[in-house]
């Protein structure tokens, strides 16, 4: 944190995209300086700049690969979570059955003792 250049970097970024910090709120203005045109819209721009998606959306090969990769990772994670959920469901059923068995045995034991 002590580097002068690092401070200057942070200040330059703060100057470029200023934030207003009040006692109870923080705000900033979104500057949208891009021109509206009839050309096809870029997919990433629509995701990251919130630009309106037009009739035709273009995507670079590298961006498509990245999205494909991210979707594949999410699918893997989903699969992993689905398996965990299944195991947890089975475990919870086993726990419930064991609990019922214990309660039933205790009830039988109490009846025998009486």
């Amino acid at each position: 944190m002590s580097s002068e250049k690092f401070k200057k970097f942070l200040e330059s970024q703060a100057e470029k995209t200023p934030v207003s910090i009040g006692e109870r709120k923080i705000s900033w203005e979104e500057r949208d300086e891009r021109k509206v045109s009839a050309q096809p819209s870029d997919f990433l721009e629509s995701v990251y700049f919130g630009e309106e998606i037009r009739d035709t959306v273009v995507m670079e090969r590298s961006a498509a690969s990245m999205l494909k990769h991210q979707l594949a990772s999410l699918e893997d994670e989903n699969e992993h979570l689905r398996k965990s959920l299944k195991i947890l469901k089975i475990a919870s059923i086993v726990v419930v059955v064991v609990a019922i068995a214990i309660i039933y045995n205790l009830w039988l034991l109490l009846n025998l003792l009486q």
Partner: protein
Amino acid sequence: MSLRNRILDLEKEVKSRFVGNEDVIHAMILNQLHPRSTNLIRAPRGVGKSTLMLLMLKGLSGDDLVVISGASEVKRGEVIGRLHIPSLEKEGVERVLWASFVNARGKGLDEVNRLNPYTTANIHHLMQFGEVWAYGQKTPVEDYSLVANENPMDATSFIHPPPFYDRFDICIFLSSLTLSEKFRLQELMNDYGQSLVDSMPQVLSFDELGEARKEVSEVDLDPELAGYINLLVRDFQACIRDKERSEVRPPALCEGCHFIRNICSEIKEPLSERATIALMNLTKAVIWLYGECDLEEVLRIALWVLPHRVTLVRTSNLLVSFGELLVRERIKMEDRNFRREWPLLNELRKGYNSGAYKLAKEAAFEDITFAEELMKLEERWIGEGVLRKEETFATQMGWRITTRRGITQYERGRYL
């Protein structure tokens, strides 16, 4: 003629003799503009690695160039130095005759992958310390330009250690010629009497190059560009599970990690700090030569600086994989702007603010590099009594920062 024009002339002369791969020549020209420049050309056989190496070295140093070839038998005396036998016999003094490779301004290494490990070790030392050792004596090596080439697919390759390759500022890849380029090459060969290299003139003297290098080194990089370069390198290094010291490597290390979809999970061996120096030098060279450089240019430059320094978890085509990683990095930088991460950190650096801290914590949850800086601030606030340890982002996430001998280290709580 100004120094800049001479450099541009050098590029023109090389391009007029070398067909295709124009961006690669441009990269090599930019990389000549700092002291002790080292360039690695990688390509399959017969694509023009040696020709490009010789064209560049001839243009810079004329006849003051020596090429060591890994394809021939290389002895130590040819690379570094040999004993002067008469001195030893007559006076009993060990005097070393330093090899012409040591003294030459233009140094070429042909088929570096075939160089034996001993020669490689000597050259590694030269690139690292700017000096050479032989028979217990050392001599400093004056400023030079070193261009090496290799075909990594060559079956007779030695496997050189990664730190050796890390000493090369840039690594460029040549591709084979397209149909029209083949015709162009044949025309060129006819124009230059079948000898492209012999026709190459020395465009500038080495002293002039030294002067240009000095001017480039004096270029003051603005904090924004320096920030982007440091950010880029840090994003290719940072790992919340401390892969630098971990015995387990990605992808096994990344199993279940919160940042599994980040760039860090794609990188097995993190980037060395030499990448920062190389990026800074090349950015300065662009500014000196063209008057300006922006983030997009830095990312383009990164494609010459990163591939030989980083080991990826999986890749089928190195350049395509790095291209994709750099696109992801660009998106990450835009995301940071969108979240106002750096303005928030700038405010928090001035003092604790609960609102800004809450937003910063949200951003840190998705960004290791930002989280590192936030956790450093948290430590300061704990020291100042502004914040309790259990309230910190580091505690909530189970991430911890410790500083030992100036090294910042992160450890997951469960590894402690």
